[in-house]
């Protein structure tokens, strides 16, 4: 992202970066929820504390991604980094699920 570099982050093109954040934010936040839910062996029932807490986890992550995604220098970078992070999280979920099965 921007740490350590002197070249300014362009303002133009923020909307494409924001769209990347909106969509990858969904994948990343839901993936994080699924991974943590698997690791902690949560039950997918809205009546349980675990499921409720997991639901509340989604919103702050998604909001944070929305706020930060415009700091990428281009939409392509935003897609690659955030999409990659989402893929990693979902891969983690899959691995944990396979081990548990």
């Amino acid at each position, binding site marked *: 992202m921007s740490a350590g570099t002197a070249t300014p982050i362009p303002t133009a093109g923020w909307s494409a970066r*924001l769209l990347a954040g909106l969509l990858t934010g969904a994948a990343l936040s839901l993936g994080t929820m699924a991974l943590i839910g698997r690791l902690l062996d949560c039950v*997918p029932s809205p009546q349980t504390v675990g499921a409720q807490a997991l639901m509340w986890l*989604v919103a702050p992550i998604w909001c944070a991604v929305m706020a930060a995604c415009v700091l990428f220098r281009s939409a392509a970078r935003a897609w690659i980094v955030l999409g990659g992070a989402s893929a990693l999280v979902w891969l983690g979920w899959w691995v944990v699920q396979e081990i548990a099965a």
Partner: protein
Amino acid sequence: MKIRVRSDILHLYRELHSWVGILAGLFLFVAFYAGAISMFEQPLQDWATRPPVLPAPVSLSRTPELIERALAAHPEAAAGYSVILTPAGAHPARLEWSDGGGRHHHGRGGATVFAALDDHGALVTARQPASTAAGFIDVLHQQIGLPLPHDIAMPIMGVIALLYATALTSGTLVFLPTLARNLFSLKLFGSAQKAWLDLHNLLGIFSLPFHIVMAVTSVVFAFHEQVFVVQHLTLSTPPAMHRPHPAAGAPPVAALPPDAILAAIARQAPGVAVDSIDYLQSGRAMRISVHDPRYSLRGPTSGFATVDPSTGRILSRDYLPGQQPRGMSVITVFFALHFGSFGGTPVRVLYLLLGLGGAALFYGGNRLWVVARRRREQRDGRVRDSLGTRLLDRLTPGWSFGCVGGCSAVLCAAPLVADNGSGSVFAALFYGVFTAAVALAFVVPQRLSEQAPLWLASVLTLAVAPIAVLARPVSSGALLLAGAALLLGAGLAALARRSGRREVPLTSRHRPRPVQAA
């Protein structure tokens, strides 16, 4: 206090804030204005509902007799009936059940049957729909004013909530470097732009925690169904969860009468006030609705518990205020922070003011966008406003004060319409006024485009006051409603008078400085 933010990031977030704000602002205005009114949804519904003509409620000890007669005459009520502890307002009888099938959702339910006993012990029932006026305004709040099916409106609301969250972070970041300089420099009587900017910044920074809570909780409310679908697909369900409902095959049991249930609840959860006892599935299941101002409530106005109908033992304390397991009580705080369902009436009044403040924040934000854009266009040598500037210049007051006027029109009609407002009479009224205000803002000359919808909203809001006290027997609630309507209507009239004066054009009198929030 000096906070340094890199100038490129500042520029980026300023641009982001202004565009995301303009995209979401008008929807958020509706959400906050209707939400502020919804803080008093229950008292409004009590006021609006025309009470049925019924004998006085029987005592709690005679209630079993009432239930027995009612079930003999209306066996269908056995599926679920409610005993009301203090009958009043929208729940005027000791016993009621819904004949529309299931509980009321989103303000559009069937009718309710109310039951009482006359002097000779004979059953008297009255069937009537509950007033849908307050419920309509609540749905307006939830669906940010979108007249769409709930399943479609909610994800759109969610995206707006995400944009709102983005506008909050970017706006705060843009404002931070000038925090110390601008915090207490409110100048309401200078250039229009400076006044709007100061007001916008002041409202924004002082109600920031409220707005953060609203943004995050709204994202959850918008997407909770989808989130639970993902949970079902990605987490493993233990086999025990698939067992059939235990009550389904069980023979009917003798459910305890209401006073015995109350005594049992008082023993197990002292201090909790029971509002109603729901006898469900022919007495096989039971749910109580309660409130307790000492604790956060899971719902907008109440907490819940399931109870064993034959013993009165509390089966689940997950939503019972003051009795919840620690995890659940933390989760409940998140809900209560959105609903303002903690601390009783003072918090509700505070939330009403914060909601109105939020609406003012968004209105001011849109005005700032127009003023800043107009100034930039003039600097670039344009003689006339561009299409976007002209559109937002007129749409903003038409939309916002159309929403205010529409809500007031609904409240005016609420106690007057037949059948307590069945069908879509309130929707027709609201969107009629709303459309008229928008049209008005577009057809009048530019200098009147704010004033005309303001007058419309002011007159409709003032009209709520006489209707509040005349259409129903005078009560403290009706007087408070009338007072609030007079105050708000007068405020709108004052704004309209001020708006009549032309916006101060930009002159050298004002030192040009960068626009911070727009």
